[in-house]
């Protein structure tokens, strides 16, 4: 203190004030900042506690131990190659491309992510592709010292080779069910790309095959079931955050050739390198043409256009959250308005699915709320992002790889909080972004379309993970450790029937009804629904290019 006295000797009160006056200002600003943060945090915690939505990942699938599983692949096209990478097998060309791309752009982590991917303890023992170039590509990359991989000219030879325990099917739609049924009946496990089937009849047959062979583990490739934001959405719905949901809007918005199935035609494609009859199968016998072979999604005979390729994703994303099952009624319309290139599947499509008896749970008088419409609205001529919205009486949820919930200004549930000013309907009451703080590289418009929908990757412990990898891993774990895949035969059955109803309604131009008791799509007398579904020429004049 003596020192202090000496220090301040010669200072007037005025001098001290002028010297130390900044200290209270500093204190005031500092505490104002703390206070502001505390208030914001309290409000946030209050809402989070009130909503109580858990952003928990699903239980991890079981260990990959034991003898390596022997996997066969049928269809080494665009999707087949992606699936193989998720399984742990990349082509030499892809590895070289990715190394070069990573050298140019340090943010490109695709190669690094691939190398860091867990080893699934499998052997890729068999490949079947009816295009020689692709089959040889596969062999060159995968038939190595530590992994003997054989090519089979015919899928039945592959299934019955005794060299595979499980197969992955990534072929055109019209081959999905025949191959899956043959494998299941032979006791081989199956991972099948969507849509599960190409006709209504096949849907029953595949389900029957699965019921008769319960030991064969069957999974449909709707990988978004692994997406963490969807699991968070399920919890939000279970907690009745949205109130009664009366309308769901799902959309496809694409405006590029790849997104409109104008895939590349390989220069070496010819009747010599392609087994054309094997491609056609039960489809109408038409002369060899590369357009049909590489861009098969554009014709009903092999693919199913928007309803089979893209509606199935959106339907299953919602079915995974709500478990609402097959719609009672479906109406669809659309046409070929942007890509008049000889295709006969629509490029603009609007589908309304009615679920008159379904409810997500209400917050108003009992029996006041019941029934829901799911809209799927698609265009391949514009990519304005319309997103996916679940619209409830109390709140709306925007759903993608992120999840955002807004309270509705007229909500019953949040009425008091809105009046107190604690909830602002313009500001989200809940936001979940598993990638917060990170920005991911997406490489093309179509890739961005899938990423935004949560179809490309998801997050575990804040780390980006390929959702297809998790989906395949889940299937492999069910084979090794038991359990049911998240998208098994029942979910696949519902997906396929809903998609076929949409395709049928588009073609016949009327409301299509599902008889839940009899489990049939109601047909008019003398009407063969599958024949209509497959017919390349069937449809209203407007639907023909």
């Amino acid at each position: 203190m003596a020192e202090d006295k000496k220090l301040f000797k010669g200072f007037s009160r005025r001098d001290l004030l002028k010297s130390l006056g900044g200290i209270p200002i500093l204190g005031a600003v500092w505490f104002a900042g703390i206070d502001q943060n505390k208030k914001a945090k309290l409000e946030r915690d209050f809402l989070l506690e009130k909503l109580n939505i858990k952003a928990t990942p699903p239980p991890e699938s079981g260990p990959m131990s034991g003898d390596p599983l022997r996997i066969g692949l049928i269809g080494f096209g665009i999707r087949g190659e992606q699936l193989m990478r998720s399984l742990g097998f990349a082509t030499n060309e892809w590895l070289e491309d990715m190394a070069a791309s990573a050298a140019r752009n340090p943010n490109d982590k695709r190669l690094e992510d691939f190398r860091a991917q867990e080893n699934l303890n499998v052997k890729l023992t068999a490949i079947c592709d009816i295009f020689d170039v692709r089959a040889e590509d596969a062999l060159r990359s995968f038939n190595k010292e530590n992994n003997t991989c054989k090519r089979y000219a015919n899928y039945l030879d592959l299934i019955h080779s005794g060299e595979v325990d499980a197969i992955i099917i990534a072929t055109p739609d019209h081959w999905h069910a025949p191959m899956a049924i043959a494998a299941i009946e032979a006791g081989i496990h199956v991972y099948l790309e969507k849509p599960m089937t190409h006709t209504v009849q096949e849907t029953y047959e595949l389900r029957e095959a699965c019921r008769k062979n319960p030991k064969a583990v069957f999974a449909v490739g709707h990988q978004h079931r692994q997406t963490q934001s969807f699991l968070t959405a399920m919890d939000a719905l279970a907690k009745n955050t949205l109130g009664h949901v009366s309308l769901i809007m799902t959309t496809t918005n694409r405006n590029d050739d790849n997104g409109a199935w104008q895939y590349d035609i390989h220069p070496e494609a010819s009747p010599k390198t392609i087994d054309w009859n094997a491609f056609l199968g039960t489809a109408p016998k038409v002369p060899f043409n590369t357009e049909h072979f590489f861009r098969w999604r554009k014709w009903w005979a092999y693919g199913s256009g928007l309803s089979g390729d893209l509606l199935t994703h959106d339907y299953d994303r919602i079915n995974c959250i709500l478990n609402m099952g097959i719609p009672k009624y479906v109406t669809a319309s659309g046409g070929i308005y942007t890509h008049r290139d000889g295709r006969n599947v629509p490029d603009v499509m609007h589908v309304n699915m009615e679920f008159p008896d379904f409810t997500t749970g209400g917050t108003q008088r009992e029996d006041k709320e019941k029934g829901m419409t799911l809209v799927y609205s698609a265009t391949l001529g514009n990519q304005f992002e319309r997103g996916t919205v679940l619209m409830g009486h109390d709140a709306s949820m925007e759903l993608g790889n992120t999840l955002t919930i807004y309270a509705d200004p007229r909500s019953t549930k949040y009425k008091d909080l809105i009046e107190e000013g604690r909830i602002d309907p313009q500001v989200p009451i809940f936001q979940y972004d598993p990638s917060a703080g990170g920005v991911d590289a997406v490489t093309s418009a179509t890739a961005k379309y899938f990423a935004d929908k949560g179809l490309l990757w998801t997050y575990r412990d804040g780390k980006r993970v390929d959702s297809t990898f998790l989906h395949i891993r889940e299937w492999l774990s069910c084979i090794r450790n038991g359990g049911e895949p998240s998208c098994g035969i029942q979910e696949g059955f519902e997906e396929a029937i809903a998609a076929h109803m949409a395709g049928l309604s588009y073609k016949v131009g009327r409301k299509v009804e599902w008889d839940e008791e009899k489990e049939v799509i109601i047909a008019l007398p003398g009407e063969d629904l599958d024949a209509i579904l497959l017919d390349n020429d069937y449809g209203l004049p407007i639907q023909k290019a």
Partner: protein
Amino acid sequence: MNQKEKLSSLQTIALVLLRLFVGWHFLYEGVIKLYSPSWTAKGYLLSATYMKSFFSWLASESMISIVDTLNIAALLLIGAGLILGFKTKLASILGIGLLLMYYLAHPPFPGYPQGLTEGSYWIVNKNLIEAAALLVIFLFPTSTSFGLERLFAKKEIKPSTT
């Protein structure tokens, strides 16, 4: 202070106010960020429209936590220095550097995307004006009039006056 013309007391008060306000702004920004654990400059840096490779390097996995810590520390120290009237010359220079970085990441140059702003800017924006204010503060130090440095100034003068 070796100024030939002495500032009037009103001029000094105006300069002190300017110093306090700029310091206030820096300090508050720093405190808010300090107590928001999830805050990061990553988004701002990655969305840079100018000198992109430099700013995305700052935002990279290995750099971002250092950058965030340094940013918060700099905001707090500059703010405290300006308010308290301690090392204000150093604080002003550091502040100018920091503001120019913010400015250059999203400069209101003609033809550059402006993103969401609360006003309209052409070449000059509030970051640049605040940097200019700090230049004034640097050139017209006032911490011996109002600030901790008054203590030392008095002390130094003392021997000659007694």
